[in-house]
């Protein structure tokens, strides 16, 4: 019993980070119907940013977090202007390949420049573990998860409570209606990329506290983010949060029940099953 509680708890902790990164993906997706296939590689970049802030500047990853978020947000805008805007009127094929190619490029650059070595941020502010009843939680994991929860809350507040957020949601709802209301949808697109990539940056900075960093680290996390978004319902930030936690728990429980090699496979299968019986996802509209 204890081991189940332990497994579920660590699944929730990872799931919250997954949820945050998926929220960033689904935001862009919802606002402009573009899937960022380089999503996982954005995460990888963010983790390297954290790593070098620590290794070169001696900054604790928690202190570096705002900087990483800003850097990724800026990177998101650059990608929007340089890669996305030119393909907006193109075919779906061109759109898919533009971000897909970008992902491959980023991964290649990371391998070339940073090498394939695994890196790990050492002696951070958050170390050790604590017990809640029978469940032992790693402090780094817990702090990262709490951080993800806080950033997700900020994202909700931004979308729900501010004029800019309302404009973003209006653009997602109905682009031409938003334009008629005087919303500059092009600026909203750029903003979606800034906020979406910023969320990924936050997830990356938090994950980097305890997770090893290497050029392919985005591959699994990226795919999990797609699955999370599809499971939650495309464009639904709330759905992404719910599905993120669900996937976190499912993967870690699956690792316990089956061979750990299958832990992601079970999450992928769950996604396929949902796809068949509820194509719009858990919280998506038909």
């Amino acid at each position: 019993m204890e081991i189940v509680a332990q497994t579920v708890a660590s699944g929730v902790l990872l799931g919250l980070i997954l949820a945050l990164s998926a929220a960033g993906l689904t935001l862009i997706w919802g606002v402009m119907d573009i899937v960022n296939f380089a999503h996982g590689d954005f995460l990888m970049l963010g983790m390297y940013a954290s790593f070098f802030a620590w290794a070169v500047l001696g900054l604790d990853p928690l202190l570096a977090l705002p900087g990483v978020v800003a850097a990724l947000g800026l990177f998101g805008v650059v990608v929007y202007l340089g890669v996305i805007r030119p393909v907006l009127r193109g075919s779906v094929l061109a759109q898919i390949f533009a971000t897909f190619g970008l992902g491959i490029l980023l991964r290649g650059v990371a391998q070339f420049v940073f090498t394939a070595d695994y890196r790990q941020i050492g002696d951070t502010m958050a170390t050790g573990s604590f017990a809640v009843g029978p469940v032992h939680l790693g402090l780094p994991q817990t702090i990262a998860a709490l951080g993800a929860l806080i950033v997700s809350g900020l994202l909700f507040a931004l979308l729900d409570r501010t004029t800019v957020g309302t404009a973003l949601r209006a653009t997602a709802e109905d682009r031409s209606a938003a334009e008629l209301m005087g919303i500059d949808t092009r600026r909203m697109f750029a903003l979606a990329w800034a906020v979406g990539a910023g969320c990924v940056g936050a997830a990356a900075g938090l994950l980097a506290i305890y997770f090893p960093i290497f050029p392919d680290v985005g591959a699994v996390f990226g795919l999990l983010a797609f699955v999370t978004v599809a499971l939650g319902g495309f464009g639904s930030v709330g759905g992404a949060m719910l599905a993120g936690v669900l996937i976190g728990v499912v993967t870690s429980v699956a690792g316990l029940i089956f061979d750990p090699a299958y832990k992601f496979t079970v999450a992928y299968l769950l996604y396929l099953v949902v796809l068949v019986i509820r194509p719009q996802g858990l919280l998506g509209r038909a």
Partner: protein
Amino acid sequence: MPRPGLPVIALVAAALVYPLVFGSPAAINVGVLILLFAALGTAWNLLGGYAGQISFGHAVFFGIGAYTSTVLLKEAGLSPWLGMLAGAALAALAAVLLGVPTFRLAGHYFAIATIVIGEIAHTVVRNLDAIGGARGLFLPILPTSLVNYQFHNSRLPYYGIAFGLYALALAATLMVERRRIGYYLRAIREDPTASRSVGVSVLQYKLAAAALSAALTAICGTFYAQYVLFIDSDSVFPLSLSILIALTAILGGAGRAYGPLLGAGVLVPLSEITRIAFGGTGRGADLVIYGALIVLISVAQPGGIAALGDALRRRLPQPA
């Protein structure tokens, strides 16, 4: 039957001349890989380029082909040629079974589902000890002969077979292109709803394209197993292979019969060159070049290399 067009004649001539000009085993190997990827890209093109269903999971069919013929050869002593047919049939069946739930998805959603399916297959095969698991499978070495599908003295026979594979995929494409199914597939790519309004059974035609595409891909998988004589999940099932297959078609020109050959003609030598230039440690360099190429093509010329030719032709003065 229409007479063979100029491209076909040029193609055959080029394929015949190539081994005469570049006789070294390394050059023949490059030729084999170009033809293999041209065949794979052409097979992908039927589903991705004509029907517009962008698959990032074609390695699944490649892997099914490679594993089916290899397992049948090792366990039952079945000739790889028969194993190849079995693999093609199995892959076509898999394509239909996977297609029924996933073909309801459009665009990005479909692409993601194919990645997920590919990853599941990759993991399952890696952990299935009954078929070698993570250690992979070595093919039994048999005497050189066409029946054994093994040639130990020269790579030329493999080159010939690879050309045959490409010719098969191309012939299938040209046949599809000129028939009702070719029109219907393009209609589905352009607008599935409008297609239904004029009587196209969208799912049925997507499934037909998928089955044909998968079968041709599986045949290439068998060829790969016989050529390399070793397979494991990481060489025949990885996402990177699926991407390379799709990339070959996209780079050359999706939905154009000769596009994938152009794509393979650029990509294969390019990856050989980067491999030589940067050696084993520079594994990132080819990714950088691939990635940059894909972004550039999508942003500047979504029609691929083949469309570049059209654009040039349009610039030239037209004969009156």
